[in-house]
């Protein structure tokens, strides 16, 4: 009998810590309660897995304290029928069954705080293979055969970067992991570090060996405290086990590890900005070339890859590059992890082979739209990406095909939106973000994003003018051309794609002063349906500006000149008598 509680950040936020304590108390110390990281089914958290004496898995979802007690009772009596009503439904099981997990292979299965569990599932065998029987070129060739490309967004071939860093002259080289997952809506890197930190360490060690680096640094977001703790713990364990440090496994290869906590700046996801930040400066991108492979950290040859990229490496070495490249499309090999969120029924982490369609991810795996509303768009690639409309849902997941839509693969954030999301508001949301996060180095990015943000703010406030759309388009092109780094060059994408696919929404805001999604507060008017209103006076009592009048038991009305559109009346009307239009 084995009892495991999912303890990723999502699980803990949903109350998994409390559930673990209740289980511990309820089984009266007869069974230890283990932990695991993120299972990936975030919408079902907290999740408790029980492997019975025949090693059958009973997975309990949305576990409350009462359900935890029922599970404990089932465990103590070995009568699992007692708690079967709390087990995961067959429909929800499809979420995992339809996935192919490589980067997430151990997530939600092993205990991330125990190196022995990682070793027991074949962990560090790829490192042993590399150190005992492969040259640096062998490793690079294996990665080349796999077709692995950078999973952080750019999609650059990993082997090429490794080879360039290896060929650079000099003894002092660095291997850096970019764990500054700043893209809002993406959390796969956090999940990998919290759930399987050793796979990151092993992938990095293999990369360090391939390029000849003696020092490895993980630059991780300060907003991920649990990831930092688990990674620190994993590095110590790996050091004690002889996988990290001097003369690793007696091979003569030496590599030390260090964590550097970021301090909150989206632009530090750009590799040269990240290097500046590592050196203790403002994270402002450098001019390329020279590329980091030639002159990176402290101006020494450096290689930077993202967490998900490294998480694939040990698997590729163990299974061969071809096994990886057998999956996917002509251009994009292997699998990709997506963080599926927003207005989707089943939100969580999805890893699938490249080549599947967006529709398969959102509808077959994600179960479609919450409350069966109408799908409107999916936002991919965060502030650097774009919104893809329903007509393009059969687009195949592949670097080139996604870029052709105007969005990008990015780091894999996939935020689903329904009919109630305003696309102009969405564009404004991203421009608010990039205008704030622009480092200020390039004029076009610094001032251009600010001007675009102002125009979009005007439009959502009902002050849009003729020619605003064209002005936005002009600014977009100028920023793309005038910015040095990826942040600026891609910042216009959310605006360009929403104009391209949802121009009618822009026009409705500008010409008719209406928000079709009924989201832009300034463009709404609140009305009371006289037939539905029974005159309970609740709305009038809750209205903070006394805009509602009417006698008790007779229909009320709203003075639109006074109304501040706060929505308190709708929230408090029990009869559905108030509407916004």
């Amino acid at each position, binding site marked *: 009998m084995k009892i495991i509680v999912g303890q990723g950040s999502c699980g803990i936020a949903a109350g998994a810590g409390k559930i673990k304590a209740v289980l511990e108390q309820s089984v009266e110390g007869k069974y230890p309660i283990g932990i695991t990281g993120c299972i990936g089914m975030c919408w079902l958290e907290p999740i408790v897995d029980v492997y019975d004496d025949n090693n059958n898995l009973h997975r309990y979802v949305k576990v409350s304290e009462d359900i935890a007690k029922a599970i404990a009772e089932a465990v103590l009596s070995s009568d699992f029928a007692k708690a079967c009503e709390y087990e995961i439904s067959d429909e929800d099981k499809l979420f995992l069954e339809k996935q192919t997990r490589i980067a997430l292979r151990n997530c939600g299965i092993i205990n991330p705080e125990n190196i022995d569990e990682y070793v027991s599932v074949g962990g560090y065998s790829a490192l042993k293979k590399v150190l005992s029987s492969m040259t640096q070129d062998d490793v690079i060739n294996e990665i080349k055969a796999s077709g692995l490309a950078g999973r952080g967004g750019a999609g650059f071939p990993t082997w090429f970067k490794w080879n360039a860093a290896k060929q650079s002259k000099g003894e002092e080289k660095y291997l850096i992991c970019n764990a500054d997952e700043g893209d809002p809506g993406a959390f796969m890197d956090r999940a990998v570090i919290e759930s399987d930190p050793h796979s990151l360490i092993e992938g990095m060690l293999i990369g360090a060996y391939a390029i000849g680096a003696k020092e490895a640094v993980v630059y991780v977001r300060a*907003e991920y405290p649990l990831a930092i703790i688990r990674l620190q713990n994993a590095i110590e364990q790996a050091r004690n086990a002889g996988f990290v440090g001097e003369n690793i496994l007696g091979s003569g290869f030496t590599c030390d590890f260090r964590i550097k906590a970021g301090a*909150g*700046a989206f632009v530090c996801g750009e590799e040269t900005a990240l290097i500046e930040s590592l050196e203790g400066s403002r994270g402002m991108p450098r001019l390329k070339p020279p590329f980091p492979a030639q002159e990176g950290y402290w101006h020494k040859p450096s290689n930077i890859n993202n967490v998900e990229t490294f998480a694939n490496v040990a698997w590729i070495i163990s299974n061969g590059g071809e096994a990886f490249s057998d999956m996917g499309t002509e251009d994009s090999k292997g699998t990709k992890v997506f963080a599926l969120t927003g207005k989707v029924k089943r939100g969580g982490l999805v890893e699938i082979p490249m080549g599947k369609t967006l529709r398969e991810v959102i509808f077959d795996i994600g179960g479609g739209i919450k409350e069966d509303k109408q799908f409107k768009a999916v936002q991919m690639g965060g502030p650097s990406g774009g919104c893809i409309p329903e007509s393009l849902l059969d687009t195949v997941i592949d670097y080139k095909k996604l870029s052709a839509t105007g969005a990008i693969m990015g780091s894999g954030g996939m935020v689903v939106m329904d009919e109630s999301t305003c696309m102009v508001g969405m564009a404004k949301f991203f421009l608010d973000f990039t205008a704030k996060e622009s480092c200020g180095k390039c004029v076009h990015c610094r001032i251009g994003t600010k001007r675009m943000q102002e125009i979009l703010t005007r439009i959502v406030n009902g002050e849009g003018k003729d020619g605003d759309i064209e002005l936005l388009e002009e600014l977009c092109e100028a920023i793309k051309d005038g910015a040095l780094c990826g942040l600026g060059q891609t910042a216009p994408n959310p605006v360009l794609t929403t104009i391209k696919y949802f121009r009618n929404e822009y026009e409705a805001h500008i010409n008719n002063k209406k928000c079709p999604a009924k989201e832009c507060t300034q463009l709404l008017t609140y009305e009371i349906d006289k037939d539905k209103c029974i005159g309970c006076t609740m709305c009038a009592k809750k209205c903070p500006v006394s805009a509602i009048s009417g006698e008790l038991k007779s229909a009320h009305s709203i003075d639109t000149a006074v109304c501040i559109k706060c929505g308190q009346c709708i929230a408090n009307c029990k009869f559905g008598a108030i509407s916004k239009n």
Partner: protein
Amino acid sequence: MCKCNCSDSNIDLNLLKPVLDKYSNVKGSLITILQNAQEIYGYLPTEVIYEVASATGNTPAKVMGVATFYTQFRFKPVGKYLIMLCQGTACHVNGSEMIAQTINEELGISDGETTDDGLFTLSCVACLGCCSLSPVMMINDETYGSLTPKKVREIIAELKSRS
């Protein structure tokens, strides 16, 4: 030292000494030093900026330049409870604005402000990475998910009653 009387005489710079001893000679450690200093004081007082500058051989302008670049650093004391409200995409789509409005109604503070009683500070932050539980906020390292205005009012009431 600063001559403009902006200093806070309650700042005990001795607390910073172990941090400076450990890092001031390690190149590239400025951000780490500032992070440690903020751990100690809860924010970065002007006196600390000057102390760090002199210990690391930087100008105060350089230290301030680095500190103001990153959103993590604060220059005013924060309340006992630091509410970090997630501004990620998923939270935006699922109504984080409504949550900010509720906090504003309950506590009368907007982004970056602290309540008069010094109990709560609201800070709107970049994605916290708990997107499936959106909208999300973090209060002193504890994460609260699937927020509704009602839930937020209950959480605030509970924290108020604790103090």
